[in-house]
């Protein structure tokens, strides 16, 4: 019974949330947009309100931009590969009959709840450290030379840390999707004579495709703005400077606000491209 009265009070109830989000979205973004056209370096007392697109030009043509985009892409792709592949495998594994399923599930999802700075520090010191890390002991145990992960393969190290954190997320969502697959469908496929791998390929994987897409999109959104893990481990050195980190350095470390703001706007645009796809999927789901 949606009467006129209830409709106007509904608007009144939604207003605060819309208002604060509108302010939150527009005010800082407009400021960033404004700074992105200015030459603003507070440390040198430089402020020139309008220098056109030269910030964008120098940001986009700098070698650090291109390399940061490459690093970001490699990092996101690497993490997605591990989490999706591992997530599908783990989801199928957890769906099997076993003893203590609940406990295994608790063990598997635990890393998601570890704060990023803790997981980065734990991995950095207690696993990757070349002198005292567990991996070094493991390498020595097998007679190999200890490997300095963070300086030899810094990107891979960060990928491992973040993938460890996000694997539970992918697993949990894919497990939900696996469990929603009707067993009758699988039994029908079995009756039709499909062997195990065909059942996976033709029934399970298509059923999971939507969940996989959602996981990819949501993770991408979050992964594009990875910060703490880099901040704690390499501080952006050794080719681990992502776009997010580059902008952070331009803005807060070298205090080149104009250049950093232009970079921020670029990051916003790139993130929006991914967001549009995610919103389409979510929006479709709202209709039913």
């Amino acid at each position, binding site marked *: 019974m949606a009467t006129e009265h209830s409709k106007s009070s509904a608007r009144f109830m939604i207003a605060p949330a819309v208002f604060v989000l509108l302010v939150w979205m527009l005010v800082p973004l407009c*400021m960033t947009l404004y700074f992105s056209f200015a030459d603003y370096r507070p440390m040198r007392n430089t402020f020139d309100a309008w220098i056109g697109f030269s910030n964008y030009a120098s940001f986009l043509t700098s070698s650090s931009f291109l390399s940061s985009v490459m690093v970001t892409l490699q990092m996101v792709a690497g993490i997605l590969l591990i989490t999706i592949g591992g997530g599908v495998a783990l989801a199928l594994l957890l769906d099997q009959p076993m003893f203590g399923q609940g406990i295994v599930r608790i*063990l598997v999802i635990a890393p998601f*709840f570890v704060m990023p700075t803790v997981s980065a520090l734990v991995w950095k010191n207690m696993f990757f450290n070349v002198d005292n890390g567990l991996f070094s002991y493991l390498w020595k145990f097998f007679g190999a030379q200890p490997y300095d992960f963070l300086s030899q393969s810094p990107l891979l190290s960060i990928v491992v840390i973040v993938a460890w954190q996000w694997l539970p997320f992918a697993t949990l969502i894919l497990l939900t999707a696996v469990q929603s697959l009707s067993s009758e469908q699988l039994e029908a496929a079995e009756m039709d004579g499909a062997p195990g791998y065909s059942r996976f390929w033709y029934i399970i994987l298509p059923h999971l495709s939507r969940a996989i897409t959602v996981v990819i999109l949501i993770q991408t959104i979050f992964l594009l703005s990875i*910060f703490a893990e880099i901040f704690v481990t390499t501080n952006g050195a050794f080719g681990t400077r992502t776009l997010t980190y580059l902008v952070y350095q331009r803005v807060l470390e070298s205090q080149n606000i104009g250049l950093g703001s232009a970079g921020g706007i670029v990051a*916003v645009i790139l993130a929006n491209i991914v*967001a549009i796809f995610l919103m389409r999927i979510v929006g479709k789901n709202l209709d039913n």
Partner: protein
Amino acid sequence: MARAISHRKKMMWTALAWGIGLLIFFPILWTFLTSFKAEATAIADPPVWFFFDWTTENYTAVLERSNYPLALMNSIIIAVGSTLLGIIIAVPAAWAMAFVPGKRTKDVLLWMLSNKMLPAVGVLYPLVLIAKYFDVLDSRILLVVILMLINLPIIVWMLYTYFREIPGEILEAARMDGANLKNEIIYVLTPMAVPGIASTILLNIILAWNEAFWTILLTTVNAAPLTKFIASFSAPEGLFYAKLSAASIMAIAPILIMGWFSQKQLVRGLTFGAVK
């Protein structure tokens, strides 16, 4: 469904799943073990597993000698405060959208979601400027507000999906049974909405507790929560493993326990209802 599964097969799956589960959990387990070792034992070569002199001295050391209590307090205030503030703003909005849907409800929901996707660096400097202008840099109130804002879309969405599951016929039944609007809210709607609100609070406390961009960049000491505290735990190589572990365990333990209780809500909350 019911099909006899051979015992051997089940044992095999059990062994495999437990093996992989423990492997994934291992870093947390190792941190836990290390936190009870003396510093020298922590970096012993070869590594020591279970048989060492268990000590709680690292925990007392962390609690006594550092800013840990302050950081813990800050984490609690910021996580709980931002979540409650968000709930207060989100409950009416989600309520209205679920029960009095209009033509634009869907657009408003999607627009809110798009807020969540805004990369934080895009607005980093303006936020610093605004915080400086209001003289709230390194203050709890700043982080409460910012974390509320970044999680508000998720809070609204989660509540919306919960509220939408309350069937309209039940509200009509209450009306037929003679309940006026006040009684309808007290006896029927609220009891049915409380579990959803509680789950939303739980998940958002977790998200706010672990947030590590704004908390690191906008605090120094006074308002620094555990994320920042741990990040500044710059241990000279290998000397402080046990204390780092103790601090880490204290920082993650409460949230880990809350997280285990909220695993179901996690899927709903972070996929915006796209996976059920």
